[in-house]
């Protein structure tokens, strides 16, 4: 039996089609391109570096904006560099943070080397062991829609969705690399002034 996997652009677009005031942070590489391909928005903050930082940028943002849903979309390699973040985010007790890992089991930007998730490491198990409120693998578009519908008020803690995606080469979709401009646009979107 062929293992069922998602097409990453289609899955991210479907997830973000359900966007309802969400603030979105992306991990470097393909997740940044996937989110930009779904539509550049002022409520997006794209990382082009700082590997291992996406989920934690999301945590600081979620704590500052407790009335909004924060959705971090990153890859398996980026999240593997932030294994400790599963513990830190659990300990924070944050309830408005959702982590979406696009898991192709490879380091896609650097030559498609097999990653830890491709060698059996289970991020869903890690999150559950750390005490996250929910963590599940998503392999169908119907389940992507279900996951999107779960993002909203009422969670008792952070949630993880691991989207199993195909390791496919795709054209890059490039958002601005000017972090100052993207930061200022993001803050203006929230009505925040200052520099």
């Amino acid at each position, binding site marked *: 039996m062929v293992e069922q996997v998602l097409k990453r652009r289609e899955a991210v677009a479907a997830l973000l089609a359900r966007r309802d005031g969400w603030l979105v942070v992306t991990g470097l590489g393909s997740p940044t391109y996937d989110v930009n391909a779904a539509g550049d928005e002022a409520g997006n903050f794209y990382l082009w570096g700082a590997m291992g930082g996406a989920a934690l*940028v999301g945590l600081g*943002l979620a704590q500052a904006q407790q009335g909004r849903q924060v959705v971090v979309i990153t890859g398996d390699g980026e999240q593997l560099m932030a294994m400790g973040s599963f513990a830190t985010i659990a300990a924070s007790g944050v309830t408005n943070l959702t982590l979406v890992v696009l898991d192709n089991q490879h380091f896609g930007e650097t030559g498609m080397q097999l990653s830890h998730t491709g060698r059996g490491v289970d991020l869903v198990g890690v999150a559950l062991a750390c005490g996250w409120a929910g963590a599940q693998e998503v392999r169908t578009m119907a389940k992507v829609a279900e996951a999107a519908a779960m993002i909203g008020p009422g969670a008792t803690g952070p949630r993880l969705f691991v989207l199993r995606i195909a390791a496919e080469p795709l054209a890059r979709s490039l958002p601005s690399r000017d*972090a100052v401009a993207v930061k200022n646009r993001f*803050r203006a979107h929230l009505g925040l002034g200052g520099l």
Partner: protein
Amino acid sequence: MTDTDWPDGIYAALKAAGIGQMSFVPDAGHARLIDRLTADPGVVCNVLTTEEEGVAISVGAWLGGQKSVLLVQSSGVGNCINMLSLPMIGRFPFMMLVTMRGEWGEFNPWQVPMGQAVRPTLEAMGLTVLRVETAEDVVETVAMAARMAFDADQQIAVLIGQRLIGRKKW
């Protein structure tokens, strides 16, 4: 400020600056300040597994309209280096308070290499490094660092000398 109550002065300076988030890897030199901030319902506090997490959290906090401070020991500065790319390239206000080891009366040789490398590594990443040695200077320095960070969009590390913290009791 006296040799014992300066952490309370830092707490007051951080509150006056409008700090809303704090993250930390514990250090004995920061223990009283950590206690004060974690007891404050107006400050969201995160305990970290490694110091670089706090750099990313600070950036997220500012994106969302809150000011954040990172409390670490000198050994933890080395864990932050690449993540400091984020506040540097995005010109995010960033402030870390570093309690120093590996210098004044250090008994543990393992603390020395990173302790001695703190200033050059932070400066190599482009941060502005301020250093205090006395209780008289520490509170004003933190207050001015906060102004530089949050009003002038700077990335600032305040090093609190081991002479002020005191030799670790062993």
